[in-house]
């Protein structure tokens, strides 16, 4: 059985669903970050698959930039989380409602 582009897109959809469900049900911010990593990775698979099946390198380039953005997001996000944890002693989302929006 030949593996086509649709197989990869379906896999990407499944992983995206898992990550999105994680984003919606997680309360701990660190685990919420993990879920965003899953989202970024699932989109990367779609980019690489499209790049392969259309013989175009643009998809891979965008995957590289997505990886760079994910790395910098982790650095800044974890720095902010550490500051928050030093102040308040936990990283639950519910405690971050100080603006009462």
């Amino acid at each position: 059985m030949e593996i086509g582009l649709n197989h990869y897109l379906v896999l990407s959809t499944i992983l995206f669903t898992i990550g999105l469900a994680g984003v919606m049900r997680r309360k701990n911010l660190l685990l919420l970050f993990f879920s965003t990593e899953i989202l970024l990775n699932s989109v990367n698979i779609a980019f690489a698959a499209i790049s392969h099946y259309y013989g175009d390198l643009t998809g891979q380039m965008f995957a590289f930039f997505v990886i760079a953005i994910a790395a910098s997001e982790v650095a800044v996000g974890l720095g902010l989380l550490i500051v928050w944890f030093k102040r308040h002693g936990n990283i639950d989302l519910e405690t971050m409602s100080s603006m009462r929006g």
Partner: protein
Amino acid sequence: MFEAIAFYLFAFLTIVMFYITVTTSQALYALTALAAGMIFISAFFFILGADFLGAVQIIVYTGAVMAIYAFGMMFFDTTRDVKEKKGNKLIVVGLSTVAAILVVLIFSAPMISTNMIAFYPSIEGAGNTQEVGMVLFTKYLIPFEVAAVMLLVAMVAGIVLAGKKMDLSITLMSGAEIEDIKKDQDKKVLS
């Protein structure tokens, strides 16, 4: 044939690992499962012929990002169980499925409507790494430089945010000095 076997094997493994990441109540299990899932995802890149992307995936994600998470988790209290949001599970699963299908539609709509033409077609007789280098340093040179500046900004931000009070060395201080610092911090937290 081998491609199909590899695809289904790694698809199964990746889905299981990410499912564990999302559902487990232990932060350490989530971290380990996420690292394993990242490595399995690089297998897809190797199957698809994107060798350089696969290597970058392993180095950056499992090497750098997971290491940052592991170091960051040392600051947090990760031994206790993680609390979950109590909500309607049907809504969560339904909404995420709808959103994921929308993403696939966004990806596939331009492919169905028109015949896509490769802007930067593969070069004959060049390996994947060589091709990536040619495209990255000609057509995508400015985004590449901007990404480099962004990483520098992120590095400075990480150092500034996480490195506060790191000029004090607790191992070199006497007990009385440490107590004073703790009292100061308690005052700041209370105020």
